[in-house]
């Protein structure tokens, strides 16, 4: 793994390897001393062309917990507002010696361009590009689901955290992704990743918020939330934010996509009544920031089954894992051994061979 641009690039073994690594990272975050010396001397640049609170802070925290130096760059207040191009910005960062560039951009494909243009040598991590992909969000969602639900069948919902989910995928789980799928990179990343991990994904949205070409996605589509909740009994329900800033063409309130917010809430909002339809062990997720009262009611957002705050905490662990896997190894070797990262796990991290190679 050289870059992390899309969850489409991850096969099941690679994804499970990231989740397992994240689990070990999460374990270190409950210690008194949370900082690890692993990426000492490495530089991570957060290149954010779009507003973000939790993703940027999460990446910054993850990099700092691994002792990397972090440079934050946001388009506002930089030369980008004077008209500097992505290329020139990237070349500037390259001259400063960035080992990894975490990029969020309003245009789909910007991280791909950055990774394959030769403008920067370091690893490129996609932190959200347009309506395309947000792979670390999908990974943290999968991590949260695995931690809560994947073990529930084996141990009962009460024994969460008692059993070790290491090495497990999400085979057989049913997950509903509800809301503004059209504008959501989180949904796209999650559909691909959760399917790769063996889960059964259903998208629920009003027809106007379902993208063209969705029939090619590896998932089911429904226009009726109540039916999905009643008939499928999903193990996890992921509410998407209604992205009104991307609906501006339709006028205030997203007029072009649904008649009014109240009607959207009636049809697709998660409230106490719908919460009661979910099975006992199901969890409620939201990538944030939430529009309380629109796609999710306060009852649902603050219920004990909501893991929304935990998702944020897991985000740090998952991003630590991604930074570790991209930056810690020999950069020449890791490019060619992307697939073998998971196979090496079976032999253990420290074989006699490696030990001899140290000398």
């Amino acid at each position, binding site marked *: 793994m050289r870059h992390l641009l899309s969850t489409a690039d991850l096969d099941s073994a690679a994804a499970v390897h990231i989740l397992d690594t994240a689990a070990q990272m999460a374990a270190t975050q409950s210690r008194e001393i949370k900082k690890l010396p*692993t990426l000492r001397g490495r530089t991570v640049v957060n290149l954010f062309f779009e507003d973000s609170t939790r993703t940027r802070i999460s990446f910054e925290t993850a990099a700092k917990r*691994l002792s990397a130096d972090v440079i934050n760059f946001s388009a506002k207040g930089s030369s980008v507002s004077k008209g500097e191009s992505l290329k020139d910005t990237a070349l500037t960062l390259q001259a400063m010696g960035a080992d990894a560039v975490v990029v969020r951009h309003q245009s789909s494909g910007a991280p791909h361009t950055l990774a394959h243009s030769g403008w920067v040598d370091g690893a490129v991590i996609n932190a959200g590009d347009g309506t395309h992909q947000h792979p670390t969000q999908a990974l943290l969602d999968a991590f949260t689901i695995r931690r809560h639900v994947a073990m529930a069948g084996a141990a009962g919902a009460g024994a969460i955290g008692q059993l070790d989910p290491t090495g497990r995928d999400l085979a057989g789980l049913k997950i509903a992704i509800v809301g503004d799928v059209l504008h959501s990179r989180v949904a796209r990343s999650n559909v691909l990743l959760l399917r790769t991990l063996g889960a059964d994904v259903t998208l629920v949205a009003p027809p106007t918020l379902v993208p063209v070409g969705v029939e090619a996605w590896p998932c089911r589509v429904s226009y009726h939330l109540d039916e999905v909740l009643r008939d499928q009994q999903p193990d996890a329900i992921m509410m998407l934010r209604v992205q009104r800033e991307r609906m501006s063409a339709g006028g205030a309130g997203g007029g072009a996509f649904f008649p009014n917010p109240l009607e959207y809430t009636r049809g697709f909002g998660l409230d106490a009544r719908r919460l009661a339809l979910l099975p006992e062990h199901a969890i409620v997720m939201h990538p944030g920031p939430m529009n309380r009262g629109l796609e999710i009611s306060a009852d649902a957002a603050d219920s004990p089954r909501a893991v929304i705050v935990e998702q944020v905490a897991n985000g740090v662990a998952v991003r630590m894992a991604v930074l570790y896997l991209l930056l*810690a*190894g020999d950069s020449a070797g890791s490019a060619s051994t992307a697939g073998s990262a998971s196979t090496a796990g079976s032999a*253990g*991290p420290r074989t*006699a061979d*490696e030990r001899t190679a140290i*000398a």
Partner: protein
Amino acid sequence: MSSGPVVPNDPSSMVPVERPAGTGAPGVPAAPAPAPGSRLVLGAPEISRALTRIAHEILERNHGGADIVLLGIPTRGLPLAVRLAERLAAVEPELVAADLVGSLDVTMYRDDLHKHPTRTIGATLLPPSGIDGRIVVLVDDVLYSGRTIRAALDAISDLGRPRAVQLAALVDRGHRELPIRPDYVGKNLPTSQSEKVRVLLTETDGEDGVFIAGRQGAETRQSAEIEESR
């Protein structure tokens, strides 16, 4: 893993009297076969005896097992720590083996991360008592450059402040690159740096045995070493 030339097995090692019947020659065990030309230098009975001796040495040196915590370094230090704990508990009945053992992963503290493909991170699990004020005995399979132990010392200092840290290794093969010395050694095994020492344990590899493979350069010294171990 066999960088050296393939050499016929030393005939004496083909007759491993200490191995249980039916397990086959040392050249053809189950999964992670030692390279052709590798020789068995410690069999299961010797490993068992060495661990029993180390367990007694730990109790002697620390005047009992009251404050002992055994931290195994994954992958193969951990089963060794578990075995040592069982032996400590067998000698001192008031000890509970499961409460003595922890696992200490040092991957993220290594100084050679950027020289290798990315390593898989193992689990760090401390016993319920924690390590503050206790006597921590680090347990590893092979002591070589000492860099793993340096990383382990860093990892420990992030986890707490033990009263003392001691080091137990099943095999000490020399060639230290740092001022680190073991407190308890199963077997001193003089080697050349071109040779490879491979420890197999039932828990991870399906059988017990310490094998050595490598070039013929240090052969004379090696055969002497094997004779001595018999």
